[in-house]
């Protein structure tokens, strides 16, 4: 029962060999193992390749300023993708994040407009996000509503809330200093949103790999029944997991409101799909239990790079949608292929 040298890849069932020629065979074997073992590394390679190609094509691309600009453009989706990763790892999905982003942004804006100050505004946004997230968790964990439906419903509720409390009109009066969140730069170089995003990714990574919450998130997504039978309070953890998603959407809402200088009740439309795309491109499985957080950051960077790169090259904006859609489908195909190769 020597486990270490248990099933070598070569003995796993494989599709009939395709003749790729000598060169193909030599490179395909090791490459295949890298992709199978660690899709995140593979996607990081794709990101680097994109950067290299774009820097050859345009002198404006590979500059410190432009690279930081990409991280700023990626920040909002990357932040939402943190919570979305937690949710997808637990074999769920959160469609409400775009609407919750708007709800949190207008809540913060209204609190600041009413003169309660910066701290109260930020706290209100985080509470708002946590509350919508926890409500998702209750609907899913307590009422047993499938995540797709529960969060689709919450998408409508949160968007409706944002429009009702603002009467559909953006809030322009914000607290002094709020603009630093989205527009500030540390030492005049590193954008504040980039730092916040990185810090939260590190925090999320520690939670996922080193706390009960994180390990049970994987366990719930991998085998719900076994996790329940092990005595894990799955309902409680689901509420926490969806709250995390609500909170990261709220942070993204704060940064977006700060960047555009107003609380927009109509902001965040479609962000749920962008965040899911980022997570899936990073190789996290929609079936739950498999994936890692930094891969989602890479996914968000790939999306931002595509948009930025195609802009720099002067490609018509609508083509970006085609490119991102194609990459998403390719990433899911990669996941399917990986599972088949592992005999799952």
């Amino acid at each position: 029962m020597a486990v270490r040298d248990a099933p070598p890849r070569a003995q796993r069932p494989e599709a009939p060999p395709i003749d790729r020629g000598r060169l193909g065979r030599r490179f395909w074997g090791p490459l295949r193992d890298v992709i199978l073992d660690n899709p995140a590394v593979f996607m990081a390679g794709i990101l680097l390749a994109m950067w290299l190609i774009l820097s050859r094509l345009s002198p404006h691309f590979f500059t410190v300023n432009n690279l930081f600009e990409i991280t700023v453009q990626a920040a909002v989706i990357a932040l939402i993708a943190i919570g979305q990763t937690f949710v997808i790892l637990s074999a769920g999905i959160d469609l409400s994040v775009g609407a919750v982003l708007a709800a949190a942004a207008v809540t913060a804006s209204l609190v600041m407009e009413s003169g309660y100050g910066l701290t109260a505004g930020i706290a209100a946004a985080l509470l708002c996000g946590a509350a919508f997230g926890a409500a998702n968790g209750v609907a899913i964990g307590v009422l047993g509503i499938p995540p797709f439906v529960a969060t689709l419903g919450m998408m409508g509720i949160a968007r409706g809330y944002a429009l009702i409390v603002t009467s559909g009109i953006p809030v322009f009066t914000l607290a002094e200093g709020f603009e630093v969140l989205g527009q500030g730069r540390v030492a005049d170089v590193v954008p504040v949103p980039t730092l916040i995003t990185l810090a939260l990714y590190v925090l999320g990574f520690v939670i996922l790999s080193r706390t009960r919450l994180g390990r049970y998130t994987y366990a719930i997504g991998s085998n719900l029944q076994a996790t329940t039978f092990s005595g894990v309070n799955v309902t409680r953890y689901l509420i926490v997991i969806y709250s995390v998603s609500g909170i990261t959407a709220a942070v993204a809402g704060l940064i977006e409101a700060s960047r555009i200088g107003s609380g927009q009740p109509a902001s965040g439309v479609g962000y749920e799909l962008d965040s899911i795309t980022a997570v899936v491109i990073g190789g996290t499985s929609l079936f739950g239990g498999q994936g890692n957080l930094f891969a989602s950051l890479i996914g968000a960077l790939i999306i931002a790079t595509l948009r930025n790169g195609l802009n720099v090259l002067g490609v018509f904006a609508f083509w970006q949608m085609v490119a991102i859609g194609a990459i998403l489908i390719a990433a899911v195909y990669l996941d399917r292929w990986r599972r088949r190769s592992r005999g799952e």
Partner: protein
Amino acid sequence: MTPVAETTPALLRVRGLSKHFDHVVALANVSFEAHAHEVLGLVGDNGAGKSTLIKIVSGVYRANAGEISFADRRVDFQTPRESRAAGIEVIYQDMALVDELEVWENVFLGRLLRNGLGMIERKRMIAEAAHLLERLGLDSLSPTTQVGYLSGGQKKGVAISRALYWDTRLIFMDEPTAALAVVEIQRVLDLIKTLRDRGVAVVFVSHNLKEVLATVDRVMVLHRGQVSGIRDARETSEDEVIRLMMGST
């Protein structure tokens, strides 16, 4: 050697247990005892009530009538968590292991140890899992292997070591040898005997009567929700057990 059942007080006492689902009677007036240092076989045809019995004792289902006492105390478990806290573990047929997690995480699933900062104590749990596997003679199994890569027998080994770590006094094993290779079956049966020698009470559920009679001390037969007989394994035969399973005495 005098049978354990006659020399030690019962660890688990079940009296008059009944359970019905709507109009279907799953268990009717079931009474039996399980002892430390003893393997009790539990056999019966499909639908005889074996799984229902396990689920009631472990707190998954609630009985409609009857009483259970464990370690001389009347118990009424509301959840699996409560029965586990008392020292009862169930190793389910479909294993209840999480494939995506490593061996040590599965051993500690539901009870991951934490330090003062709320971080899980990974190193300590890996060391303890390794020690545990060694005690069970499973030292070729690395605690940091992902469970999805293990064979069926190795997974049973992990499930059993998990049960053992938590000072379990009574283990229900539901078809532990189903779908295993021949070599692995023998390994699991040996593990069951190891558990018994360590003073654990084991209830062994299986369809394979040869395995049951070769492993257990006593065998209890269920037929349509009722106990149709409890026999000393050395004094009964496969034929008699089959007759009891069919409901004739």
